[in-house]
């Protein structure tokens, strides 16, 4: 009986303030869309980091005939230096496995990766030999790098992250922009919810005053107002999730179809979980907080 009463009152409120309800739905939708977008970009960042850590191997390039005096003061690597480096790598607790890539191996890989226009002037002895090292803990990459660069016979231990760093930075920036827009729009939606509640409270002041007089509990008086805001936000959150799903399905889906795109990307299943539930949750929490705050102001019980 009382549940039916609350639902009826809430429905009446939603109908009476139809335009405001639509405004709340749309603003909530836009704000939660940007919020979800930020979450997805972060998910993409962690996918990339995970992939990179899976693939990460430290390359220890050894001095060769074409190395500069500056990098290799002792000249090309000697076999004693090479053996010492291998022994040192294999005994390190940070190292999982060590592969040796000779100049000929490097040349073969080079031929595979690039087309003839580039490769025709390159000979095996121009390419460095190297140790390719897989780590037990990829995040301790830097320690290994520091330990081996500068050792006799080592020309360079390049930092692969120098390539990925700007990409991660760009994606973090995109996340910040998306979350900033989301915050701005969330403020708008809180203000709108508050205005809507004020309007509803005004248009229903007679019902409310009678409910107070006959001794309705505060919860019963306020619940229809809170539910109105929550329902509008939920609808907005569902629409925002739908828009995000469409974006991933069609936008990211198209990227994935391109043959040269081998990176793993966020998928629609990532939208369904966890992004959409988080968006719904945030929408509901904001609506409840906004309505309770404005009820204190506009609906004295």
């Amino acid at each position, binding site marked *: 009986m009382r549940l039916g009463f609350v639902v009826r009152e809430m429905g009446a409120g939603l109908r009476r303030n139809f335009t405001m309800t639509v405004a709340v739905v749309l603003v909530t939708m836009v704000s939660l869309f940007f919020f979800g977008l930020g979450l997805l970009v972060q998910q993409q960042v962690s996918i990339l980091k995970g992939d990179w850590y899976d693939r990460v191997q430290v390359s220890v390039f050894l001095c060769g005939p074409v190395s500069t005096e500056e990098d290799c003061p002792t000249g090309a690597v000697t076999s004693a230096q090479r053996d010492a480096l291998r022994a040192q790598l294999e005994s390190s607790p940070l190292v999982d496995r060590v592969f040796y890539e000779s100049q000929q191996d490097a040349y073969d890989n080079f031929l595979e990766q690039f087309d003839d226009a580039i490769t025709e002037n390159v000979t095996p002895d121009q390419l460095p030999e190297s140790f390719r090292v897989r780590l037990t803990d990829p995040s301790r990459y830097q320690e290994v790098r520091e330990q081996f660069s500068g050792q006799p016979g080592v020309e360079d231990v390049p930092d692969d992250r120098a390539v990925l760093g700007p990409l991660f930075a760009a994606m973090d920036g995109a996340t910040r922009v998306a979350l900033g827009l989301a915050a701005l729009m969330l403020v708008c939606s809180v203000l709108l919810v508050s205005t809507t509640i004020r309007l509803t409270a005004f248009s229903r002041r007679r019902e409310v005053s*009678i409910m107070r*007089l006959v*001794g309705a509990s505060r919860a019963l008086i306020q619940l229809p107002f809170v539910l109105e805001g929550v329902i509008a936000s939920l609808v907005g959150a569902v629409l925002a999730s739908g828009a995000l799903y469409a974006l991933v399905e069609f936008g990211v889906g198209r990227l994935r179809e391109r043959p040269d795109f081998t990176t793993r990307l966020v998928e629609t299943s990532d939208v369904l979980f966890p992004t959409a539930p988080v968006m719904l949750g945030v929408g509901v929490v904001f609506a409840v907080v906004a309505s309770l705050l404005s009820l204190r102001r506009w609906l004295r019980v």
Partner: protein
Amino acid sequence: MITFEHVSKVYGEGNRPALAEVTLQVDRGDFVFLVGPSGSGKSTFLRLVLKEEKASSGTVQVAGRDVGRLRSWKVPALRRQIGVVFQDFRLLADKSVFENVAFALQVLGKPRHVIAQSVPETLALVGLGGKERRRPHELSGGEQQRVAIARAFVNRPALLLADEPTGNLDPETSVGIMKLLDRINRTGTTIVMATHDDDIVDQMRKRVVELRDGRVVRDEDRGVYGSSR
């Protein structure tokens, strides 16, 4: 039923008190007229009983409870024991007579079968049997006030407060309303009615409490409206 001890009420800083040092007791089953010119504090008295306002000083007790110290979440429970009727009826225009009365029970979560039984019963008691489906605007002023009384009484409160219930009605209709209130009083319900309708007070010969500038200047059993007029 109601006990006021040295109750004062000041609305806002620097105003003169709307009620000043009022000490008064209303027993269970009493019928009390609260009379006095407009602005003398009658409505304020009723609002303090309902805890619509808080006394500035003194203690207000209703049904044995100290209203001033009542926690806010317990106020609804207090108001369920009190029915209220106003000069302007305060009916919901988009609800039928039946729905207006049923509203008071729905809000309290009363089951459907209880509502289906007590609403027609109460409407018959106030003399509106057969008019359940009318809208308020299809009724006369007296009938609308009867709907308001039915809504106040449907929950069988121990106390009924009426703030100038005949203020908008012609004398004949007012007499009908007074007979109804008298009948309700005979069921054991305590009634406090604020009014400045001297004819009615003189006819009923009930207890009269006269307020003037917020002070009780007269408290008489079987009194008339005023010696001073």
